[in-house]
Structures are given as C-alpha cells and as structure tokens.
C-alpha cells in the first residue's frame, strides 16, 4: 500500500464537520464554495480559487477542506449517474 498523505483522523474530522453543518450551509451559503480548517469555517467564496486564496491570506499553509454547497433544488433532484457513451 502506498504511503499516506493526509492523516485519516483529519479526514474523519472533516467528514464529521460536514455531517454537523451541511444543513446549515445549504440554508446560509447555497451555491458557494466553503473552506474549513481545524474545525472552523474559514472562508466562503464564489469559487475554489477564492477559498484557497483566503486560506493563504490567513497564513494557513495546508490546503483547507473545501466543498461547493449544494443548492436547494439540487438536494431535491436525483443526482446524475454517469455512464460511458458506449454502454
């Protein structure tokens, strides 16, 4: 198995943050990209570049966890499965 690059506990912590806060984010920041670092929401931007830049401006050297917050109509839609065209 290859060497790891991210502490699995860190991935767990971000997953738990999403579970706790996603509903709130969908209501407050639909369609935006959010950045989370050390359990704290550090940036809300229009795109990922905004969020990475905000993290760097705050002196955060690691890449923050990022997520584009779903819009309400996405939540209620059927998510699109993707298939090869030759199926």
């Amino acid at each position: 198995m290859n060497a790891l690059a991210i502490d699995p506990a860190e991935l767990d912590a971000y997953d738990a943050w999403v579970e706790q806060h996603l509903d709130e984010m969908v209501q407050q920041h639909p369609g935006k990209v959010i950045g989370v670092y050390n359990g704290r929401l550090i940036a809300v931007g229009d795109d990922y570049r905004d969020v990475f830049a905000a993290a760097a401006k705050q002196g955060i050297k690691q890449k923050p966890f990022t997520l584009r917050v779903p819009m309400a109509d996405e939540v209620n839609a059927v998510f699109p499965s993707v298939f090869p065209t030759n199926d």
Partner: protein
Amino acid sequence: MGGASVVFRYKPMLGRRSPTATLGLSLNESWHSTDFYVDSGATYSILHGDFARAAGFEFARGERLLIKVGDGSLIPVYMHRVPMQIGPYRIDVRMGFSDNLGIGFHLLGRLDVFDRFRVCFHEPAHIVTFDPFETR
C-alpha cells in the same frame, strides 16, 4: 489491501440524507480533502473543473471522452489517473474532470474504487461502508 472498514455517515440536508464521503485527492503533487457524493450508479468518478484549476491542475490535457449523465445528455470529461485516499487507504483512480457536471458535489463512481472496496449502503443506519479487500 485488506484491513479495517471505513464508515461514512449520511449527511442531512433540508430533511434528506445523502451518502457523501470526505476523501483525499492529490492534484499537482498537493493533497486536498474534499467531499464526494457516493454514486453507485455512476461508472466514472467526476471532479469539477474549477476545483482542479484552483489546484493548478491542467486537466484539459487528458483524454477527452463524452459521457452520458442521468438526464440522457452528453458531457465532455477529461480523464486522468490520480491518487486518492479513502480513510487510511491510498489508491490510484481514473477520474474525469468536467465543467459541465451540473451539481455541486464531486461524484465518486465505481471505476477503480468498487473493485478495491466492497461498498455497502445501509439505508436504515444512514451509513455507507467501504470494506477493502485483496485484489490479485
């Protein structure tokens, strides 16, 4: 590979629960953590192009494919093989990059993932489990 299972809880959104998973992904020799919607109906995993561009990854040099999405339309994707981390496990996966996915989440499909893990959706418990197994 073999080892302990990795469990992700469904995430509540506006009264629904969705099977998403926080995973690691290496682009341009830098590791990122981000959320994927686990889609057992999808052949390919798809990452949003703006995420890749922000990470400095020039995805458009990859092989271009047209793939069909759930509403029957075709979208262009650019294929690359990238390192991914699921819990403590690191694998290489073929990943499509697209600006036309139409939803906010990145998608985690079956290719190069479901042949390394038994992926079990337990709807009553609101969890999705990745159980690694040995491959020949």
